[in-house]
């Protein structure tokens, strides 16, 4: 039995010493060492692999990373699709060529000019001035639209009024 004369601190020390007799499962020491070393070897081998293999391995192991990558890819696809649609809608206002004229609207503009403004009727001298446009498209050149009925066409297009200097004879 316990000795009442013995100090409590000494008795508690002896009681705690019981923990020293607790032992790990059999074969534990060897197993733990081999686990540690094999994990380190696997990590070393993985470090020598090409980046895409390491990347796919990281994705396999980490579901959060996989979800994040999936989210980023989806977001990029959505942005691409959204801007693609927007781009198609705005395509008629794109500025093409050195003359600063619009390819797709040029024909319409030419027609509008002919109908609404008697000054801007196409003439052979004007065709020379817009030679570059004529070579790259089949539309009629636009010279001036002072009173175009379509406001956004007036604003968005780089319309240049020809002066006499543009019609110098050879």
């Amino acid at each position, binding site marked *: 039995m316990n000795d009442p004369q013995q100090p409590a601190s000494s008795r508690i020390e002896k009681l705690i010493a019981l923990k020293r007799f607790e032992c790990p499962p059999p074969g534990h020491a060897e197993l733990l060492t081999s686990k540690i*070393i094999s*994990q380190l070897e696997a990590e070393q081998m993985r470090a020598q692999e090409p980046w895409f293999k390491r990347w796919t391995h990281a994705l396999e192991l980490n579901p959060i990373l996989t979800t994040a990558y999936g989210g980023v890819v989806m977001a990029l696809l959505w942005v691409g699709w959204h801007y693609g649609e927007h781009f198609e809608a705005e395509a008629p206002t794109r500025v093409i060529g050195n003359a600063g004229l619009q390819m797709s609207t040029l024909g319409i503009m030419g027609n509008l000019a002919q109908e609404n403004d008697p000054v801007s009727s196409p003439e052979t001298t004007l065709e020379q001035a817009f030679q570059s446009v004529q070579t790259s498209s089949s539309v009629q050149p636009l010279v001036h639209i002072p009173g175009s009925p379509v406001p956004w066409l007036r604003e968005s297009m780089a319309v240049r009024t020809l002066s006499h200097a543009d019609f110098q004879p050879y």
Partner: protein
Amino acid sequence: MIKQRCADKPTVRDPQPAVPDALSEVEDVVLVRSSQEGDLRAFDELVRRYQQRVYATVYHMTSNHEDADDLTQESFIKAYKALKRFKGDSSFYTWVYRIAVNRTINFLKQRNRRSFHMSLNDMDMQVEKDADLLMFISDKTPRRDVRLNELQEKLNEALLKLSETHRLTVTLHDIQGMSHEEIGKIMDCNTGTVRSRLFYARQQLQAHLSEYLN
């Protein structure tokens, strides 16, 4: 429960059996330098030297073999990865111990938020020869094994009631047999703090285990 299988293998406190390898004679400093250059065989030797002691400390902190296993493994892997930053200001043993202790304390803080089931552990047959321990169990009872097992369970429960720092101090001093100076280095505090923590931890244990002490 005391089982026969424990008798023929080392306890958590016994040193690792000698490895028939030339590396077993090499000093820690040399092994650390080789490990820093990527020599896994050298690191394997370091693991063999200290894993039992690290494991024992982590086990006494967690009272669970599976958790102790995982934490020891993680600590050595972390140590290998951080080995390039090891300057040699302290011994490798103290350094790896500190890694394991910090990891274990973090783990225990997380585990406290979850429910925890303590694993009952097998005991070494040598316990029956320890006179100091047998005095806590009535020698008149024929069911001594049961009493011993009960005592072990109560002791584990009492240790788990202590704070992480107090439990660590008791584990390192009273179970692992380390000096106050060594504990101070591992816990990054002075010897006075170690002594005071030990005093308060023992007082708390005394209160929890009064039925065995009186």
